[in-house]
């Protein structure tokens, strides 16, 4: 790298209390200054708003699903409405919330800051990806208004190609376009991390969040094109009846499942890897010590991303795939559990002899560790051929992946949001309410999803609109938990919005963290740093250097 340390930027000098006179939020005003911005920080906020809308919509559908399932008869909605609800819940949550979630919001905001760059490598492409995401989202919403889709988010053929008459193609186009957005975001991150690091910032001095984001980007780049072509083939089959997936014309519907899961299994790691990166940051910061086994944790991220492409067939153990392919996929799936286990053990070991504060982000991080452990270990059960043959496509797997995606990915996302909120907005949120929200979400989550493990082992299939009455007790528990969980999610929404206006001003480094993003002001100036930072030490070297003056310590 041939970076030349640049002189002071023109972004404005700091106020005496450390808050800059102008920063990225008040440098320019007006809708146009936001919609045409090329500043990665503003684009991150655009994403934050849009994914929150989709999270709210997807959550609303989850509430309706749980209402329906409170009684066994299926008396609230007609079955076709129910089928659309769970399909759209899956599509919105996966493609429009979880996959863009942490990379596009936290990653966009933090990667240039963490590596001491002025922006991502391709700022225009970054804005383009937000627009693509939004256009994809609008297609999907448009389809939603026209009746949605009832194929399940997996779009299995030939059901999706020859049998349903809902808006499969519109939603497919939406996902296709959003996929471009995902690819471009990943591409931007990879190039940025390779080419734009500050002087002295070697690979093993990178914060673990950057490692996580890098691994995530690899999956976005390598996996997304394959689901794009799969969707394209579904659309072609649906409109032109070309026979690729139509058994009546010699096509093999199983081929679709291969192409679909080639992406959609690694996609799970798009959701969880950045969350793991966040948790690594949180655990180190709130224990005030380096992560135990930094290199193991860093390489585990890459290992998970790469091995993630070796295991997709474990979604197809009972699908008519060859039993021997199943055996191969099973043993490879076991291997991917090892780097995950390494991460969990290393986080736990980091706590040992730490100086642990019980701040809100830490509570979320600990919630993540607990829930991810259960989610991961039940995942191991599902990778076991003999067990999967029984619990495949039952509520067991619903519970498992919600432990990973909601208990893991969303806990990490919220933990990260609570951690960096002062940096993003320059404001603090109320600590009491935020700690309460972490606890409410943790409890609500477990009450919602733990009973589903039992339901699944008892044999309740997923995507059932009505079910035999003996399953009702556990379903009612689950629905009750969902109410608590929903309330838990509303709390951050309320106090975050409150804090933007009424929250006390945040100092530049409220948590006493290391990391370049804490050495600039809160909120950061447009150019991120007033002087080009130069890195001389590994990450998480405590005590944190006090570059910017610190004034008040939270609420």
């Amino acid at each position: 790298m041939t970076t030349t340390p640049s002189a002071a930027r023109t972004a404005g000098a700091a106020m005496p209390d450390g808050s800059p006179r102008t920063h990225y939020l008040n440098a320019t005003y007006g809708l146009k200054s936001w919609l045409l911005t090329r500043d990665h920080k503003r684009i991150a906020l655009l994403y934050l708003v849009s994914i929150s809308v989709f999270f709210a919509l997807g959550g609303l559908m989850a509430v309706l699903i749980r209402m329906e399932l409170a009684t066994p008869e299926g008396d609230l909605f007609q079955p076709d409405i129910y089928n659309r609800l769970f399909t759209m819940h899956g599509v919105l949550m996966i493609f429009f919330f979880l996959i863009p979630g942490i990379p596009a919001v936290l990653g966009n905001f933090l990667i240039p800051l963490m590596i001491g760059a002025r922006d991502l490598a391709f700022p225009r492409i970054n804005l383009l990806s937000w627009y693509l995401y939004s256009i994809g989202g609008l297609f999907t919403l448009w389809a939603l208004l026209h009746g949605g889709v009832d194929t399940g988010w997996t779009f299995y053929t030939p059901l999706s190609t020859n049998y349903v008459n809902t808006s499969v193609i519109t939603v497919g186009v939406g996902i296709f376009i959003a996929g471009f957005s995902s690819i471009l975001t990943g591409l931007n991150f990879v190039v940025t991390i390779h080419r734009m690091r500050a002087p002295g910032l070697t690979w093993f001095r990178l914060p673990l969040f950057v490692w996580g984001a890098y691994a995530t980007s690899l999956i976005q780049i390598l996996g997304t094109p394959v689901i794009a072509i799969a969707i394209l083939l579904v659309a072609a089959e649906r409109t032109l009846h070309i026979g690729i997936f139509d058994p009546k014309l010699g096509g093999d519907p199983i081929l679709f499942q291969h192409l679909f899961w080639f992406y959609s299994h690694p996609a799970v790691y798009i959701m969880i890897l950045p969350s793991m990166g966040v948790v690594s940051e949180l655990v180190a910061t709130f224990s005030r010590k380096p992560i135990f086994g930094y290199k193991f944790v860093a390489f585990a991220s890459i290992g998970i991303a790469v091995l993630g492409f070796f295991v997709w067939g474990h979604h197809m153990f009972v699908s008519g795939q060859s039993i021997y392919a199943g055996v191969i996929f099973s043993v490879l799936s076991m291997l991917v559990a090892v780097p995950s286990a390494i991460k969990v053990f290393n986080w736990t070991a980091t706590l040992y002899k730490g100086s642990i504060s019980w701040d809100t982000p830490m509570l979320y991080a600990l919630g993540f560790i607990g829930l991810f452990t259960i989610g991961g270990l039940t995942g191991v059960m599902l990778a076991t051929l003999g067990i999967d043959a029984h619990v495949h496509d039952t509520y067991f797997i619903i519970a498992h992946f919600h432990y990973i995606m909601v208990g893991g990915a969303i806990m990490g996302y919220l933990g990260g949001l609570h951690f960096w909120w002062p940096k993003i907005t320059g404001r603090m949120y109320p600590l009491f309410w935020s700690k309460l929200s972490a606890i409410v979400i943790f409890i609500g989550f477990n009450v919602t999803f733990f009973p589903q493990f039992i339901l699944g082992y008892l044999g309740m299939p997923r995507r059932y609109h009505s079910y035999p009455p003996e399953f009702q007790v556990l379903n009612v528990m689950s629905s009750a938990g969902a109410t608590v969980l929903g309330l838990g999610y509303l709390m951050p929404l309320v106090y975050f919005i409150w804090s933007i206006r009424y929250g006390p001003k945040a100092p530049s480094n409220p948590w006493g963290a290391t990391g370049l993003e804490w050495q600039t002001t809160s909120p950061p100036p447009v150019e991120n740093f007033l002087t080009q930072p130069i890195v001389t030490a590994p990450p998480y070297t405590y005590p944190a250097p006090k570059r910017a003056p610190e004034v008040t310590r939270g609420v």
Partner: protein
Amino acid sequence: MASEGHGHDLPGLAHHFDSYAQQRDSATLGMWTFLVTEILFFGGLFAAYGVYRSLYPEVFRASSHTLSIQLGTFNTVVLIASSLTMALAVRGGQTGKGKLAAALLVLTLILGSVFLVVKGFEYHEKFVEHHVPGASFHFEGPDAPHAQLFFSLYFLMTGLHALHMIIGIVLVGYVAIRAASGAYTPENYNFLEGTGLYWHFVDLIWIFLFPLLYLIGRH
């Protein structure tokens, strides 16, 4: 990429980069990363092709024989020639010869259009012979129903390839105009280089499509 005026004001260097080399390396890496996604995009189709060819080898051979090997070979030559002119155009940009680059780009554009026109004739022929999948599909020979799979894949693969060609031609046209007006300097011809990489990639896909579709067991 106009300078924003922050920090440095070197012509053609975006405000968030420190040097031309950093900017060029980023652009090259970004373009190649994009091409990798394209490889996997077409890769999904190649995978489908491989599966069905292994399931129905006989009918794939028979269907392949209905394609014109002359036209296929001609198009291969045309496309490789266009890659040559493109490579020379990039070299022109690299050495600061904008006018030469523009002329070579126009030549590339013409060759690309020739390819598409020939492809159009081939499509037309398929249409006349009822080899287009759908209700009017008709194929003489053994295992006719599965012939439709070959032609579905044929149209999907060559169609997507042609779509990439069209995008490429638009890009080449734009770059030719920019090159003629002297927009590319030895320090920053990144957009020209990127367009070149894209064009060569389209050529690469064809290099594999040609034997897979046209040359199955001609003996």
